[in-house]
């Protein structure tokens, strides 16, 4: 009540003055705005509240709060602990790790595991291959996806409905493994680096995400202005749309890059030459094939040293993405939200 009274008495308040002016305006919409029925919705955090008054909580509400918080803490621990364990186990003494004494902090720090990982030539070659495939692949992805998404976002471009339909169909129906394999074989890209780059050059999902962004986040007035200034579609796209789209470029670039970095199947199926294998296939050979089934307790003793190397490999191979991750995290919500817009 006190708050309301206060705003009503401040006659200099420009908002109130404008509102009063609108009340006498001839425009019916302005009059509606003045009496509040067309007022824009304000966010909850913009509404002033008295900080000294706490909303009263019933006993039931308090219990619910506690339960929710406990569950969330458990979720965070359950997510974080396995990752943290891999980190500390990678430079703890393998015997302590196996004995279960390494729990929260590393014990008997040793760098032997990492020394062995860095001395392994196969890992380095896999690393270099993956960096090459990921960087080149992402560049091709962006060069193909973003212009197409822009063209499909123009409302006056009538064929876009048909094109989008033909694109969406491919998300649900595909030829399957063997027709793809035979196609790559006849194109001669099997067992070359191009099999990582060309077949996946367009992800329809990302085209739809980028198209929704161009449709909703770039004001149509910019296109009008560009046309008046005599800009062609090329000029409008390169000089106005692209500089305004860094958020979506970051998100889609990250999606593609992560996809290339973690791609295991392509290397397994289409690459036969060991020197061209990406990191993930090298990892598979080092981490999984070498270990057998690991179902016997007696074998466990010999495994301890091997496990430490494995922890090291896991860290080394995952680190680049996890370092990149916090910088791009703020864009994620936006990217996924746009993807949710009906295609």
């Amino acid at each position, binding site marked *: 009540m006190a708050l309301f009274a206060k705003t009503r008495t401040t006659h200099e308040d420009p908002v109130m003055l404008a509102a009063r002016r609108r009340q006498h305006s001839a425009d019916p919409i302005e009059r509606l705005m003045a009496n509040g029925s067309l007022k824009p*919705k304000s966010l909850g955090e913009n509404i002033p509240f008295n900080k000294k008054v706490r909303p009263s909580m019933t006993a*039931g509400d308090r219990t*619910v709060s506690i339960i929710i918080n406990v*569950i*969330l803490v458990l*979720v965070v621990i*359950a*997510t*974080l602990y*396995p990752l943290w364990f*891999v980190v500390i186990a990678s430079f703890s003494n393998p015997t302590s*790790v196996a004995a*279960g004494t390494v729990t929260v902090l590393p014990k008997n720090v040793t760098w032997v595991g990492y020394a062995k990982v860095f001395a392994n030539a196969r890992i380095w070659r896999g690393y270099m291959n993956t960096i090459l495939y990921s960087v080149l692949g992402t560049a091709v992805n962006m060069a193909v996806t973003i*212009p*197409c998404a822009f*063209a499909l976002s123009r409302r006056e*471009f009538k064929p876009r409905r048909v*094109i989008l339909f*033909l694109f969406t169909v*491919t998300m*649900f*129906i*595909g*030829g*399957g*493994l*063997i*027709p793809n*394999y*035979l*196609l790559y074989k006849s194109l001669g890209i099997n067992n070359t680096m191009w099999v990582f780059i*060309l077949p996946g*050059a367009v992800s329809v999902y990302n085209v739809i995400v980028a198209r929704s962004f161009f449709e909703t986040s770039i004001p149509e007035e910019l296109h009008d202005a560009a046309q008046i200034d005599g800009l062609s579609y*090329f000029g409008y796209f390169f000089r106005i749309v692209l500089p305004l789209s860094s958020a979506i470029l970051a998100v889609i670039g990250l999606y593609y890059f*992560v996809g290339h970095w*973690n791609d*295991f199947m392509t290397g397994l199926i289409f690459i036969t030459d060991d020197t061209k294998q990406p990191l*993930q296939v090298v*990892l*598979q050979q080092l*981490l*999984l094939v070498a270990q057998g*089934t*690991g179902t*016997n*307790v007696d074998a*466990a003793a010999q495994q*301890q040293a091997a*496990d430490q190397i*494995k922890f090291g490999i*896991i860290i080394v191979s*995952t680190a680049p*993405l*996890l370092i990149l*991750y*916090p910088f791009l995290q703020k864009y994620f919500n936006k990217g*996924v*939200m746009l993807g*949710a817009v009906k*295609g």
Partner: protein
Amino acid sequence: MAHSQARAIQAPTAANRRKTGLLNKIADHFSRYWQLWILASPALFFIALFAYVPMWGILLAFREFNPSQGLTGGAWVGMKYFTQFFHSPLFGEIMTNTIRISLWTLVMGFIFPIILALLINQIGSKKVKGFVQTITYMPHFISVVVIVSMINIFLTPGTGILGRFFGSESLMGNPDQITNVYWISEVWQHCGWNSIIYLAALAGVDTSLYEAAKIDGAGRLSIIRYVDFPAILPTCSILLIMTMGSVLNVGFDKIFLMQNALNLPATEVISTYTYKIGILNGQYSYSTAIGLFNTLVNFVFLISANAIAKRVSDQSIF
């Protein structure tokens, strides 16, 4: 084009006028929009080559593969390979494995993100909320190879951080437990990421609804039940339809990497079988037929889920 040609046979004079009109229209369209066509053309080319040409290759499922006659050559054998698959002794095992693993993963992978989103939405402080989101999204970016090797190490009997609680036999070698290992690790990895979309829907809820609910005496649970939950229901049904389109799709990578001699009776699924039959054994036609069967079943599920959702709740993706 085909339409106007059909007309041309019936009435030549009218058609001539129409044809020039159509040509003019096309010329006009291209003179206006040729730049947009150029921008779209690389993507059109790649989709045509790498998505539509292989679709043509589906014909291989009905033909005997012949290396000298290319992608779709060879003698026509009709349904031979489909019957071979249906009568194969492995058919029952592969189908039950595929459906069991994928249904567990679909259902659990559908429910948990919703619960997580409702919980995260209850956090008042923006910083804490951001922290929880950052943490729960993280595992999504870890590669399948690393995830599977982490599972292997953690479940090692005796020494693994989880394995020491499960006796002297690894869960990885136990056909009865492998499905649980699969879906739990899948939920662990993707639950946070999949909750983003629901959080976005929850962020759009009109705050006046919360105020009205509070004035009407709703407690926290009632607000979740009567305000938050209805707000994300449309998103839920859209996502459910989309996932129905992959009932027979168990992602190849993960289950392939989890396979070992002991759990194989419970982990051989359609995608891994297609790979072994096709790429490793070179039975191209047989493998294509199995793949086509898989696609068809998925498509039928997608269409029927879409139709049901349309009738029940007016939500559809087509």
